[in-house]
């Protein structure tokens, strides 16, 4: 059983809303190209292999499909969010080969063979990643929509090391927009992990 299914398991053992939505999207994704476009000629499909959160995945994809849509619609990993789909908000931040990138501007075909980590793969089994724990402890979110992207960005930032001051943390977290304005607590969470 993969990570999302575990996370999404219904309380009463029935079908979850998220599972149902994801299932619908998978069906639509397989039949057509990316949302709202005409189907690609079948001979243009490309074979893509990805290691997502440690698991090898082999997919046949329309080359127009982004990494974001692949994760959400084909692999059911809906933790990664689609905010703007234009590179302007950071909600879709994931790690490719350990570097934080925007999955909405990444064509899945262009990262074939690479290692992808999403918010679902950040925890170590049942133990939250220190950045996840810090977001909980510091109340680093309100509605939570931007949070997976914030946490993926912050986890990379802690490794990159630009956490010398609050000013530096703000600058290096500026690629993640929060419409709720949870910024002070997000900065506090990053500071708590960076020490």
């Amino acid at each position, binding site marked *: 059983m993969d990570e999302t299914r575990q996370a999404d398991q219904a309380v009463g053992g029935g079908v979850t809303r998220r599972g149902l939505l994801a299932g619908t999207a998978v069906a639509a994704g397989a039949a057509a190209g990316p949302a709202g*476009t005409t189907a690609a000629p079948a001979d243009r499909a490309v074979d893509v292999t990805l290691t997502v959160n440690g698991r090898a995945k082999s997919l046949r994809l329309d080359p127009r499909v982004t990494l974001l849509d692949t994760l959400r619609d084909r692999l059911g990993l809906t933790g990664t969010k689609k905010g703007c789909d234009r590179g302007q908000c950071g909600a879709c931040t994931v790690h490719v080969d350990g570097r*934080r990138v925007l999955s909405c501007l990444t064509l899945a075909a262009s990262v074939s063979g690479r290692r992808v980590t999403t918010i679902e793969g950040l925890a170590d089994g049942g133990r939250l990643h220190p950045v996840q724990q810090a977001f909980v402890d510091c109340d680093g979110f309100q509605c939570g929509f931007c949070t997976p992207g914030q946490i993926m960005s912050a986890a990379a930032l802690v490794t990159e090391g630009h956490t010398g001051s609050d000013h530096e943390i703000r600058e290096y977290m500026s690629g993640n927009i929060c419409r709720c304005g949870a910024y002070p607590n997000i900065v506090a969470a990053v500071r708590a992990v960076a020490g």
Partner: protein
Amino acid sequence: MRPFAFETPASLDEALRRAGDDTQFLAGGTTLVDLMKLEVMTPSRLLDIGRLPLRGIRVHGHTLHIGAGERMSDVAGHDLVVRSFPVIAEALRLSASPQVRNMATIGGNLLQRTRCGYFRDTATPCNKRDPGSGCPAIHGENRTHAILGTSDDCAATHPSDLAVALVALDASVHLASRDGTRRVRLADFYHLPGRTPHVEHDRSPGELMTAVTVPALPWARRSTYVKVRDRSSYEFALTSVALALDLHGGTIRAARVAAGGVATRPWRLSAVERALTGRPARLETYEVAAAHAAEGARPLTHNGFKPELLRRTVVRALVELGGRA
């Protein structure tokens, strides 16, 4: 997004052999994928150059050499660049966001397209996207548009911060095609819009940018990039200034100054450089020199603030680097 064929050339030679009028090279994709989603760019084939050996940051006989496939973040953090050409490192660090800088390449940065809202919206006319259709910006939304190098047919700014730093340093780009290789000064590479805003630079569709070279300039160790924008990060420039100063005993022996956010291509401020040369490094000198910054400017209806903002940005950069004395 329109359908296209995705190709992964295994070598530079193969990439050049396959390139043509209907192709685009895919580097970081941060401009290209965005504009393909908007159907502003509609190539029928993509050539993925992400794995080609277009890497390397090194010094060759005092010239700095940067592979066109190097990522913005790697160049911004590279010791050699930080120490010898801080203006390059700062221009990159003040660009976009950490995630975009991890994806985007030097070649792609120099070839990114304008952020003019009409250019990005296929429901409106735009001479750059659709030659001859007209320019709604001239009498429309033009607050962020250019005041220098404009024409009646286009006033779009060139959005790259890096290009401004590189033009100040008199850098060159290296291009390769099936017919061989050539080198072009970056200052000559970009065209003014004139009557043909869709012709943006001196590059044929099949030409691949392989590298950028920056000639030795020992005193560029004293250089900086100042960027003024609507919010303090993750935003394009309203005005920006790249500055390098050769200071000796309180006198400016030489200066390099270029401006961004105000012109249709990265704009070298030669008159400002001349007014600084041989003068004492103090506020009065800076103000006299900065008065030349917006010479020839043609503000539009909503960007009348830009000439004064540009002059002040020049002074601020000079104070930061040369001191107030």
